[in-house]
């Protein structure tokens, strides 16, 4: 547990620092929720509410990355999920609850199937994850446009569907409720069952996992399936909030933000241990960062630059070579001898 907290320390510290900056600039109103029209509001609550689609995708991405994979198609799947849900509702009785229900289920199922397809490409065809998911990253938005006929379907404001994005349950905004449910659902799914351990095993050492009898192909497909479903759900919530589905721009670059959130949260891109809570903190950091930039008086265009800096710092801090290079001036002299790259004396399989 100790090492777990240590992993979370830096992301938490960054988040707290960002919050302090915001509070310093805009006062405590930033963090203290207010209640308007029977639902929670306030700057920080709105940040969290807006960050839910990113949270969902990042959680799915965390699970895929745990298997040493990556899913670039989530942005496109977001667009497809949004397109299916909105188009289905638009073509039918908008105010009927069962229409909305069918739309949501349909969008989720399609998104999950797309995820499973990605997983199959990786597990059975042996295509590199980055390559396999690139296909749908490129083609997916075309499919979304195909569904919407190139239009941006706008649902009416009185369909129950928009409640998924704008409503509140006991004053808590619905997206936040969904985000929490999915977060705890995934934590339960991975940590009270053995799924988490098997994911980490497959990502940490595929060959050892195979020899231990793990069905690694099934586990891999399941990971991508979950990721796809999460992306679809993110699309549903995002489009419910807007009341429309933009096949071209909905969820644009969200895959990059998601990967960033996962990496900030302490999950290594090389697979192995994953931290869903860390990812959630990473999402909160990215969400808060966007507001911070405006609050400290910079133009919103700084957003990209700030993200670039974050990506760069995180990537470089995770590089052992960089740390070694940074520390080199401090340990010259006594330890001029380069340390052995990896302690693997004679472990090479020679007999093959």
């Amino acid at each position: 547990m100790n090492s777990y907290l240590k992993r979370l320390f830096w992301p938490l510290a960054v988040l707290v620092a960002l919050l302090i900056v915001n509070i310093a600039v805009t006062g405590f109103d930033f963090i203290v929720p207010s209640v308007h029209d029977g639902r929670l509001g306030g700057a920080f609550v709105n940040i969290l509410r807006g960050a839910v689609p990113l949270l969902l995708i990042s959680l799915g991405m965390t699970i895929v990355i745990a298997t040493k994979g990556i899913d670039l198609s989530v942005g496109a799947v977001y667009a497809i999920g949004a397109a299916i849900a909105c188009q289905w509702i638009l073509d039918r009785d908008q105010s009927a609850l069962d229409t909305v229900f069918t739309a949501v289920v349909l969008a989720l199922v399609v998104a999950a199937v797309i995820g499973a397809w990605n997983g199959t490409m990786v597990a059975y065809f042996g295509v590199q994850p980055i390559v396999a998911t690139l296909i749908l990253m490129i083609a997916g938005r075309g499919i979304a446009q195909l569904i919407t006929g190139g239009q941006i379907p706008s649902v009416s404001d009185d369909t129950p569907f928009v409640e998924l994005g704008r409503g509140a349950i006991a004053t808590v905004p619905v997206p936040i409720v969904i985000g929490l449910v999915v977060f705890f659902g995934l934590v339960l799914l991975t940590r009270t069952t053995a799924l988490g351990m098997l994911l980490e095993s497959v990502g940490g050492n595929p060959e050892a996992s195979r020899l231990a009898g793990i069905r690694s192909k099934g586990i891999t497909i399941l990971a991508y399936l979950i990721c796809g479903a999460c992306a679809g759900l993110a699309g549903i919530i995002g489009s419910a909030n807007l009341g429309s589905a933009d096949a071209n721009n909905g969820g644009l670059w969200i895959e990059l933000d998601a990967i960033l959130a996962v990496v900030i949260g302490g999950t290594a891109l090389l697979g192995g241990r994953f931290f869903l809570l860390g990812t959630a903190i990473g999402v909160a950091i990215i969400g808060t960062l966007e507001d911070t930039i405006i609050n400290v008086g910079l133009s919103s265009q700084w957003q990209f630059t700030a993200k670039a800096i974050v990506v760069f710092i995180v990537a470089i801090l995770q590089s052992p070579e960089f740390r070694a290079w940074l520390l080199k001036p401090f340990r010259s002299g006594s330890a001029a001898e380069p340390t052995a790259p990896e302690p693997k004396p004679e472990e090479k399989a020679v007999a093959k």
Partner: protein
Amino acid sequence: MSTTTLTERSDRSTLFDGLGRYIPIAATIGLLIAMYAGGLANYSNFDNPQLIADLFIGNAALLIIAVGMTFVILSGGIDLSVGSMMAFSTMALAWMTVELGLPAEIAVPVVLVFGTGSGMFTGAVIHYFKVQPFIATLAGLFLYRGLTLQISDRDVSIREIEFFSWGMDRVEFGNVREGGFSLPHISFIAFAVVIIAFIVLHYTRFGRSVYAVGGSEQSALLMGLPTARTKVGVYAVSGFCAALGGVVAAYATRSANPLAGVGLELDAIAAVVIGGTLLTGGSGFVLGTVAGVMVMGMISTIIAFQGNLNSWWARIAVGVLLLAFILLQRFLGRSGEKRKT
């Protein structure tokens, strides 16, 4: 026993004996011919040579950037920053010439040097700090887009700058109305880039090192090849090409759009892969990339000719082609997994 010379006994079928590497590019060219033939058969006016020429006008910047991407992908890397870099270069040109009043003759080299230099920096981070190319260039994607938007978040016209009128001046080949065609100068810039890239990749040590590093970086290192210089070099080439793409875009549109080239990195990657280059590196040809760009252009052309098809079919078609080429490469047996790093 034998003191005779041992001659080659291939362990694979003769079909793959050295010819295997030409199969993907042959497929691309076959596809291109089939599409053209299909177009000829179905649409009148498809035989107009200007139709082919147009492929190199609208796609001039894409072609240049895809050529740079070919270097990076051949070496086993990827560069996500090219779309942003292109937009940034165009915007920087506009800013320097319109706002600062610098002569374009100075602004253009500045932009090209900046593109090359930042590519080198990215390459150095990737090589020396072992940061994954995907992540390192992702930072570039955000950074250059951010810088572009900071210069201006709306279009900046450069119509006033005389220098940029040269790019779309056309050179005519025969009478356009009687089976001739015309090409603007920017197309010739793209052709020059292709020819230089071809010579560099195939006839210089740097070019061959790119293939060697993409084939197996470990082996290249053990063979004593300059892997550091090679890897930094390919990102420098890609950065240069992206900046040049920005210059060409400035010529083509005579304005700077802060959201130009969004997603262009994906188009470039797609063109390279459809051109038969292996996404995991080590195999492919820059002429394949030309064919890949032409295929993507031809898809749009056919959709335009068909009239009742919508533009999104182009994206879906590109996706299907990507799938086909990735699986083709997979079955030709040279996958990323084969080379453990």
